[in-house]
């Protein structure tokens, strides 16, 4: 749910990073946080366990600049990937404008990727969204791993609506901004359609 404030000429969009445990959702956001211009970024809030696993969510507000005289601000959220945090994941999807699915390229994690997409579809539906129509981008993360599955194979297993598919190594920032940009494009184009 985009919040358009005509008084302060601001527009706020919520983007959620989704995916199985340890696929690199937090790494994506951390990289953006480290690279972003200090004037443009807010504080990175991480609600994590002592072992740095996401417990509830990470949150990063980003000022992107202006479009048509409106300040555009993105609120980036990650969900906890571990299976048993499903109730929390559902809450974080509330009112989101777009979803980035971060898939783990390692062959051994393919089943977890598939399960997580199915879980995303269910949780989106419970929040009144349709996974087939909401702005959505598929990121194939950890492309540098020796056990990474071929892109064509991942595409066959995980891509289901001709969504933008971006190869990434989030720990080195490869593909991170491209992924965010592809999502932003869909959200803003959606707004255009009204």
């Amino acid at each position: 749910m985009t919040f358009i404030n005509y008084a302060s000429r601001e527009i706020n969009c919520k983007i959620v990073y989704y995916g199985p445990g340890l696929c690199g959702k937090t790494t994506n956001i951390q990289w953006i946080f480290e690279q972003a211009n200090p004037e443009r970024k807010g504080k990175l809030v991480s609600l994590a366990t002592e072992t740095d696993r996401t417990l509830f969510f990470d949150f990063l507000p980003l000022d992107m600049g202006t479009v048509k005289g409106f300040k555009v601000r993105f609120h980036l959220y990650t969900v906890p990937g571990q299976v048993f945090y499903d109730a929390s994941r559902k809450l974080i999807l509330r009112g989101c404008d777009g979803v980035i699915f971060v898939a783990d390229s390692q062959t051994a994690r393919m089943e977890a990727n598939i399960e997580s997409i199915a879980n995303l579809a269910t949780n989106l539906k419970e929040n009144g969204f349709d996974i087939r129509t909401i702005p959505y981008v598929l990121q194939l993360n950890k492309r540098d791993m020796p056990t990474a599955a071929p892109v064509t194979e991942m595409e066959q297993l995980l891509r289901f609506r001709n969504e933008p598919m971006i190869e990434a190594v989030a720990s080195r920032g490869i593909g991170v901004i491209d992924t965010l940009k592809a999502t932003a494009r869909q959200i803003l184009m959606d707004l255009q359609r009204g």
Partner: protein
Amino acid sequence: MAKLDLVMFEEEYKQLQEIISRLQTDSSSKVVFLVDKNGQQIAAAGEVRSIDATSLASLTAGNVAATDGLAKLIGEKEFSLLFHEGEKDNLHISIVGKRGILVVIFDQNSSLALVRLRVKKASRELQEIFEHVEQRAQSQGGDNAKFESPFTEITDEDIDRLFGD
């Protein structure tokens, strides 16, 4: 379509701002924030600069959402009030209508009873405005002629520029 954008016009925003400014003075509190259930700040009054408002809005919404989940687990519709007591400052969080959250931060210069009393009155006024905003959004759903989005002519170049390309 589940996605109903929250569109706030100048006049409504001014009214909201007036109500929470009054609430801040009347309740002798330090800061009052009005945030939306999805974690976005709508308006603020008081010593706003002393607090990271964006993080506050997102954490409050997370807190309310988690408490909502707890309420449903035990068969309650919602817990409409949350209170956090600190050594110096206290947080009073209450739900306004379907999508608003009112956050009042106060210290020993006020009291829980006074805050509760003032919040009750302000909530009613805020709710009326929210209902108005919602009604307008619903009556205009699918009818873009009445409400022209500022993004009707957005181009790929506009989006590239946002990312500094």
